[in-house]
């Protein structure tokens, strides 16, 4: 038996200062605390280190398009639980949960609008809805956006963010890759421009279809972009991943991305591309 009892070590339970939820955010880039209003006024970019916070599809559309020009299309499409997926939580429950949580009907907002006077068909994915996985509704909205562009002879802008295919819809989700890419084939045949914008994170099935098929592919700084997840790669290969692996900067270095564009310059940059590609008449 020990002669001296080891004093029980206790961390002093310093009372944490309660912060009103949602008013302050700690920046993952510089660890500084940023006020919500400051973020909102700065397109959700950290004013100190330029870290790009997640942005909703709605906010992106407001920032990219000319004021009041956006016309939403296909808003009435809804996902259905065709496979009757039974996991720990059913697909139906998850859909309802994310619909209530985000106020969105699915993971992409689509329609058409103007960018500095250029008409564009536009689709913007929202990662907050089920990791913006691509099911039938996402695939259909993207495909109809592309077809709208082809029929109306206008450019397409797709802002991607996605965790990949939507497992709950089984093979129907995988087939959205073929469907969207096929629609792009027809758009390309008409010599119309497609600007693909990659945001954090864009991966797997979305990256392996329409997101990789832009006439130009641009990305927001430091976005995570890739096919397989880093954990899967590590487990499969037992290799250490290189510094900055699967970031936008890494992919620019390795030749996939045309340019890395700061969020606040995105609208001007897209408009410049459109001026190059649209001057056919």
């Amino acid at each position, binding site marked *: 038996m020990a002669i001296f009892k080891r004093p029980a070590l206790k961390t002093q339970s310093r009372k944490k200062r309660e912060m009103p939820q949602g008013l302050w955010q700690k920046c993952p880039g510089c660890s500084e605390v940023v006020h919500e209003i400051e973020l909102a006024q700065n397109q959700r970019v950290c004013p100190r280190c330029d870290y790009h916070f997640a942005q909703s599809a709605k906010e992106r559309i407001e920032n990219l398009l000319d004021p009041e020009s956006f016309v939403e299309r296909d808003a009435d499409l809804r996902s*259905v639980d065709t496979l009757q997926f039974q996991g720990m939580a059913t697909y139906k429950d998850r859909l309802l949960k994310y619909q209530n949580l985000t106020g969105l009907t699915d993971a992409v907002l689509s329609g058409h609008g103007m960018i500095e006077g250029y008409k564009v068909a536009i689709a913007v994915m929202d990662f907050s809805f089920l990791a913006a996985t691509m099911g*039938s509704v996402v695939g259909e909205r993207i495909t109809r956006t592309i077809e709208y562009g082809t029929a109306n002879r206008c450019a397409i802008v797709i802002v991607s963010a996605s965790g990949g295919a939507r497992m709950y819809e089984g093979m*129907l989700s995988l087939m*959205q*890759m073929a469907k969207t890419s096929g629609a792009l084939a027809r758009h*390309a045949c008409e010599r119309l421009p497609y600007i693909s914008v990659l945001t954090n994170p864009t991966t797997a099935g979305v990256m*392996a279809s329409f997101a990789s098929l832009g006439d130009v592919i641009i990305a927001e700084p430091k976005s995570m972009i890739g096919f397989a997840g880093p954990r899967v*790669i590590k487990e499969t290969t037992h290799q250490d991943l290189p510094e900055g692996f699967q970031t936008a900067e890494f992919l620019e270095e390795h030749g996939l991305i045309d340019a890395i564009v700061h969020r606040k310059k995105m609208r001007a940059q897209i408009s410049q591309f459109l001026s190059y590609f649209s001057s056919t008449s």
Partner: protein
Amino acid sequence: MDSQPLDFEKPILELQRRLQDLKNHSNEHELDFDSEVEAMENKIRETRREIYEHLTAWQRVQLARHIQRPFALDYIARCFTEWVELHGDRVFGDDKAMPSGLAKLGSHRCVVITHQKGRDTKENVKRNFGCAHPEGYRKALRLMRLAEKFGMPVISLIDTPGAFPGIGSEERHISEAIAVNLREMMNLRVPSIAVVIGEGGSGGALGIGVADRVLILENAYYSVISPEACSAILWKDRRHAPEAAEALKLTAQDLIGLGVVDEIVPEPEGGAHRDHDLATANLGTALRQNLERLIAQPIGELMQKRYEKFRKLGKFTEGDIAPEGAPLQETIHSREQTSDKSA
């Protein structure tokens, strides 16, 4: 029975062992057990039929992965003649997980693109377990262009757990390689047939899977994610793979129902690995029949049908939406367009 039975085949194995005992006993003691032997043989036949007619999704996944199953090069050796393998993507290297080249199907010159797995460790190291890198998909695209130039149909034999998740794969943009193939296969100006002969693993399978006709072998599977990975995500545990396999609707029968595949190629009883001759003969027949039908059609028409086939895949509701909480299924809209009964 072969040397590598699967778990669910054990009852058959047990009966066969008892039959052998019976026969031995009969020989040793010169007794007449003929009626017992016959009864036992009947029972074996019935048990086999019972088991193989009611295979679960997970059992089929195991058959699709069976190491004795015919692989792509076995089909090439038996269904085709004059095979010439063409190597390399002319950019980076030659992907040995995707041996591809020229071959004749009957009198038809074809470009054949495949995934190839190995049967032993050495072969699997060479073939990377059938998991291709970007070079494989770019080689496939190069050969599709060749097919277009010389007016040859393209036949893909799909058998991969998935595209390879590795550092080199990402550095050389596996996603771009697959995406470009999806787009270009849709616009290919020659007839195309894709067959899932074993494993149809997600994007890696689809990367050579956009075709006028998509066939699948009876016990092959085609899935958006492996049952194991799906189980790990949904149940936080890989042991639920059998339930995941069921839920994913990945069997040939399920996929016909979803419209993802056009035709099922029958396998010998108990799986393709039990009779390579019959399995390959079945595929050869299916390929010839489909090819004959495809080349009889004008290419413009084929391309239009190909587009429509993939265009209509997906299930969702549209229009008047039921109030929140009400069952969504009631207004299912499946975009069934005017059906083209080309089959």
